């Protein structure tokens, strides 16, 4: 097992590559979810304000 993590002495190059890949892949999934949530909140606020003005 420790031999696996050692990557034949290249651990400091191999694992950061995979770590960076995971960070980038996850970030690209989270970012559009947050963008959509932010826009939804903005629209909801605007709708609420419009409704309050009508009353």
């Amino acid at each position, binding site marked *: 097992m420790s031999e*696996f993590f050692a*990557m*034949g*002495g*290249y651990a400091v*190059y*191999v694992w*950061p*590559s*995979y770590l*960076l*890949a995971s960070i*980038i*892949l996850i*970030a*690209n*999934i989270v*970012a*559009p*979810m947050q*963008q*959509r949530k932010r*826009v*939804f909140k*903005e*629209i*909801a606020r*605007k*709708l609420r304000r419009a409704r309050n003005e009508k009353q």
Partner: protein
Amino acid sequence: MIVRFFHQMGSPRYFYGVAGKLIPWFMATFLITLIVGLYYSFAAPPDYQQGESYRIMYIHVPASWMSMFIYVVMAISGLISLVWRIKMTEVFVISSATVGASFTFLALATGSLWGKPMWGTWWVWDARLTSELLLLFLYLGIIALHSAIEDKRVAARAVSILALVGVINIPIIHYSVEWWNTLHQTASVTKFDKPSMDIRMLIPLLIMAISFKLYYGAVVLMRARAEIVERERNSRWVQDLVEQEAI
């Protein structure tokens, strides 16, 4: 039939719905191929020259392919946007740009991480590396230009033109290793005779490539959906959607 399909897909509301149904499928198939691909990436035998360090290639090569593939998809969407003014291809251009930039950065960074132990340097100004760096700047330019223009439809046209001009860089990247003497090695997979790679090493590479494509499918649709609600915020159906979610 085909015409009707394109007409419907051109409508933001319809596209939003269809994309929402497709995303889970892309995500599920991405995760399955990722797990299988990763397993075989580490089960493959070490390289006789590079030892274990070559496993970086299972990220680097698919990421590099994606950086070019996404650019071509983006440029084609740009062309369609300019000619037919279809809203959805306009959304596709900018949605692709962020994912494309990410993969380009990943390709460059993993290349560096491999280059240090194998070439003895993080970076050289050879034709392949330089043209790939130019690709990153093209993507970043497209993102910056899009956010600089307030009117989203004008922004989409400007970005489409830039994407089309930049497409000249794609064959340059691909053939750079043949046209110039580069430190970067020539292609091992995409050539006409047999790939010069052991089948046990090649298969995980191809699975990872498929996995990244499925990932792009999922993420670009998620981005596109977010862009759609942002652009169509004043339309009735988006407001209904927001109210439904609030309840």
